[in-house]
């Protein structure tokens, strides 16, 4: 597998200890099965104390179009008889905004009488849009929603690495350049201008904020904030969630969610115990699964034909983080 280097023993040692994990894999599988049983029991109990309202667990996944397909399959087969009432436990960092809207509308079809989203810990970004689709959001004291400003991933042309930014940063960048023109160095301002994107691209990035706003208003005004006696203006909430926070990671906890006008309730008592228990058991399960995967990947690497490494595409020398022709000498 190529020339040995001074640092390769470090890699080899890690591989050996991962291989030793293989012997423990059956033990890990037993522990994972035990956690799965606990999660199933807790889900059953959650349904019992909620008058048999079925609960869909939506955990640890980026929302994409293919996920919508899978959820539709699950709902069609297992939730056909849910009687128009549905709870959805959401733990997600977000994903594709169009897919999140589609998923939200899908859950609505299965919960026309009652649709509640339960957030044990995270429903950020596009997942925040999702949980705004129901009648109520139930949150633990540590649950977080997040702002809905889109995240644009671009290759940094100077450093040849992927970086993320929000369209909100366009305005602050233009402000910075304006200030530099007026009060600082005109030369520096011009240099900064030259590094900016094509204006049409900048305009389309800025426009992308409106996508989240439009979806959010549609969802809020047709369910959570529909009807008389509901406080909270969908347009104001949408504006706040898309442009009102300085950072995409901003923690919108229960109090903040309530303050901006969302219908939110705090999980308490046995329901809190169950939901938090499901979340923790699932997190433990993922840790154990990671150990199993570590052993698996070590075996996969060991069984690689050595000549395969010679077939790898040649890297662009300007790009870091890709194998270079002289890696043996590092």
């Amino acid at each position: 597998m190529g020339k040995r280097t001074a640092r390769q023993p470090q890699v080899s040692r890690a591989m050996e200890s991962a291989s030793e994990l293989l012997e423990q894999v059956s033990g890990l599988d037993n522990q994972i099965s035990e956690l799965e049983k606990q999660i199933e029991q807790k889900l059953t109990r959650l349904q019992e104390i909620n008058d048999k309202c079925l609960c869909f667990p939506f955990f640890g996944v980026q929302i994409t179009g293919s996920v919508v397909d899978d959820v539709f399959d699950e709902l069609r087969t297992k939730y056909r008889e849910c009687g128009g009432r549905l709870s959805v436990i959401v733990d997600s960092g977000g994903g594709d905004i169009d897919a999140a809207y589609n998923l939200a509308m899908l859950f609505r079809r299965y919960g026309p009488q009652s649709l509640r989203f339960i957030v044990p810990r995270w429903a950020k970004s596009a997942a925040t849009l999702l949980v705004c689709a129901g009648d109520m959001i139930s949150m633990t004291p540590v649950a977080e929603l997040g702002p809905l400003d889109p995240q644009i991933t671009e290759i940094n042309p100077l450093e040849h690495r992927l970086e993320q930014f929000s369209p909100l940063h366009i305005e602050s960048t233009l402000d910075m350049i304006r200030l530099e023109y007026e009060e600082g160095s005109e030369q520096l301002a011009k240099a900064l201008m030259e590094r900016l994107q094509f204006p049409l691209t900048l305009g389309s990035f800025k426009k992308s904020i409106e996508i989240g706003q439009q979806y959010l208003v549609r969802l809020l005004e047709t369910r959570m904030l529909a009807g008389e006696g509901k406080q909270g203006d969908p347009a104001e909430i949408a504006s706040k969630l898309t442009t009102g926070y300085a950072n995409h990671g901003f923690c919108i906890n229960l109090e903040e969610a309530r303050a901006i006008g969302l219908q939110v309730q705090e999980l308490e008592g046995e329901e809190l115990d169950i939901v938090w228990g499901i979340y923790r058991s699932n997190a433990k399960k993922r840790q154990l699964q990671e150990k199993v995967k570590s052993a698996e990947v070590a075996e996969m690497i060991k069984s690689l034909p050595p000549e395969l490494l010679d077939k790898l595409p040649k890297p662009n020398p300007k790009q870091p983080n890709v194998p270079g022709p002289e890696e043996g000498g590092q």
Partner: protein
Amino acid sequence: MSVATDRIAVKLAGALLLQYGEISKEHIRAMPFLIEPGEAEMVISGLMKLFNVEVYQRMVSSYPTPEWEEVIRLRDPRETNRSF
């Protein structure tokens, strides 16, 4: 992570991608010599730049909760072979 370990990790992940046609991000994150979460993300980013790939979510289980993994797969193996 040292530059050498970084390059070895991208090479090995790339070889797995060629061998199996796809590799899950979870398998990359579980590579035994990657310690910090950021290291795995650098390897994933390296693969994305090096190969013509697409990322999709694959449902791997539905009991007791639906479960997905993110998979990086070669978009068109013949096209990638031409760049060898």
